[in-house]
């Protein structure tokens, strides 16, 4: 395939992905808006007003970056895991496998599909947050870059989960038992500086902490961790897991007998 043909094929996958989650926007775009709105009302307004300041900011201001990032993470992950597993389950993955599409185009197409949903939901949540607090961005390039990289990383995780999944139950195990706890313990609602030394050290092993804090740094200019190291860690994870996902696709794990 020429590069032009590959570009067309990539766009075909991406536009099908976008068409898919737009078609079912009541299940894909609306729920995160409602859930995050509830977080803003309950944690931000009702409880937050009693908590006072955190990291030098109003509690509402402090949790907004974390909530935006949480929505980006869960939606980019959920989009790819659900879409790719469905493709396997309904067997229309065969449409791609019989075609001359290289595997890396398939992978990149699905990843960017997940990234696009993560970012759209992130924008929706950001707009929601404007009803509750004034939001100014301290460092635009860092903010945009970290959202984009985080969405890529969790889209790759979603893809890997979908490859290994053998049933619909398997696609909910990782979000329920790994992703949600790590997100909640990743400094979305609190600063890890509040924790005792031991739990603070344990928290440093949570990759989501780095993403949430880097994003918070981009918006508020404060972070519990070193932003440079956070970027390096995210990029290393992306490269490593991308190669692993590509290897799974090349070997036909879960898709070829």
């Amino acid at each position: 395939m020429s590069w032009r043909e590959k570009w067309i094929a990539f766009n075909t996958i991406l536009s099908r992905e976008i068409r898919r989650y737009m078609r079912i926007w009541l299940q894909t775009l609306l729920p995160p808006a409602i859930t995050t709105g509830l977080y803003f009302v309950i944690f931000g307004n009702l409880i937050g007003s009693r908590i006072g300041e955190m990291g030098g900011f109003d509690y509402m201001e402090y949790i907004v970056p974390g909530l935006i990032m949480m929505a980006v993470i869960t939606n980019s992950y959920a989009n790819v895991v659900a879409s790719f597993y469905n493709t396997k389950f309904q067997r229309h993955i065969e449409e791609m496998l019989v075609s001359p599409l290289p595997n890396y185009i398939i992978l990149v197409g699905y990843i960017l599909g997940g990234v696009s949903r993560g970012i759209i939901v992130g924008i929706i949540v950001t707009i929601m947050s404007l009803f509750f607090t004034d939001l100014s961005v301290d460092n635009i390039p860092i903010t945009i870059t970290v959202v984009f990289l985080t969405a890529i990383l969790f889209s790759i995780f979603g893809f890997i989960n979908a490859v290994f999944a053998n049933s619909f139950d398997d696609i909910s195990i990782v979000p329920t038992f790994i992703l949600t706890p790590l997100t909640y313990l990743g400094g979305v609602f609190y600063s890890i500086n509040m924790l005792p030394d031991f739990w603070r050290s344990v928290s440093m092993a949570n990759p989501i902490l780095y993403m949430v804090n880097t994003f918070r740094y981009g918006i508020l200019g404060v972070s519990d961790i070193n932003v440079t190291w956070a970027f390096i860690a995210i990029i290393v994870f992306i490269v490593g897991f991308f190669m692993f996902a590509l290897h799974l696709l090349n070997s036909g794990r879960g898709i070829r007998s």
Partner: protein
Amino acid sequence: MAIALSIKNLEKTYDTGFQALKGIDLEVEQGDFFALLGPNGAGKSTTIGIICSLVNKSSGTVEIFGQDIDKNFSLAKKDLGVVPQEFNFSMFEKVIDIVATQAGFYGLTRSQALERSEHYLKKLGLWDKRNEKARFLSGGMKRRLMIVRALVHEPRLLILDEPTAGVDIELRRSMWEFMQEINDAGPTIILTTHYLEEAESLCRNIAIIDQGKIVKNTDMRSLLTQLSAETFILDTRNELEKAPVLENYSVKQIDSKCFEVEVEKDQNINNIFEQLNQKGIDIVSMRNKVNRLEELFVSLVENTSVSEKEDVKDGVSV
């Protein structure tokens, strides 16, 4: 004549240890209408799966128009179109989107994809359904949709894996005409089917696969001449008490107005009618007992089973 498909020493052993293909060699010439037949579980779908990259092979090579599917993956796949046995499209997408998306996977621009989609959807009578979601189509329409999807990038080699399964007779006949039309226009077609009448009327060459091996690979005409005898069923105008005795022919009564006659390859049918005329028996209709190819197919497959059993009995590893 160029070779559209070349398979050499193809083997497949599944993780369970089941050896589905035991070293298959097959060549299909460009422009051919080729039948790949075999009983269920013979290895047809595994062979097709390997050609289409849906199944990983254990060993051997597959070339499509001279392009190795491992070494020149993209070039080989560009020339290939597949209509699978089971529905494998998204049931929630619109018909037009399914077809145009498939075209996009082959690098066709959106406008080219829509133009081709319109052409083939019209050709197969699905244009009116273009905006319907696939799950609302009837079984026959879904089959035709898979044919349209396989044709949209205009492949030079088209594999049809039981394309008319579950389709009513009228539609099946019109699909035969369409397949013939495609083949006449140039593309090579490989057909697997359980309707042997379909293979006999459409295909010029044939391979029969059984228990992971090719047991016959020849042209349809030579295969049919291998039939040592054919059985005809004759219906009489008047009731007969018993089957007529015909010199040199084996005759068996089916009911009072119907009997069957076995005709050896070196005998003729005229002689039967002469003898029946002399006996004053009026024949009102005559037909083959079973499809000729079906008879051969059964005998070939039965032979393989017997020889496999004998191999096992003799302690030969199979």
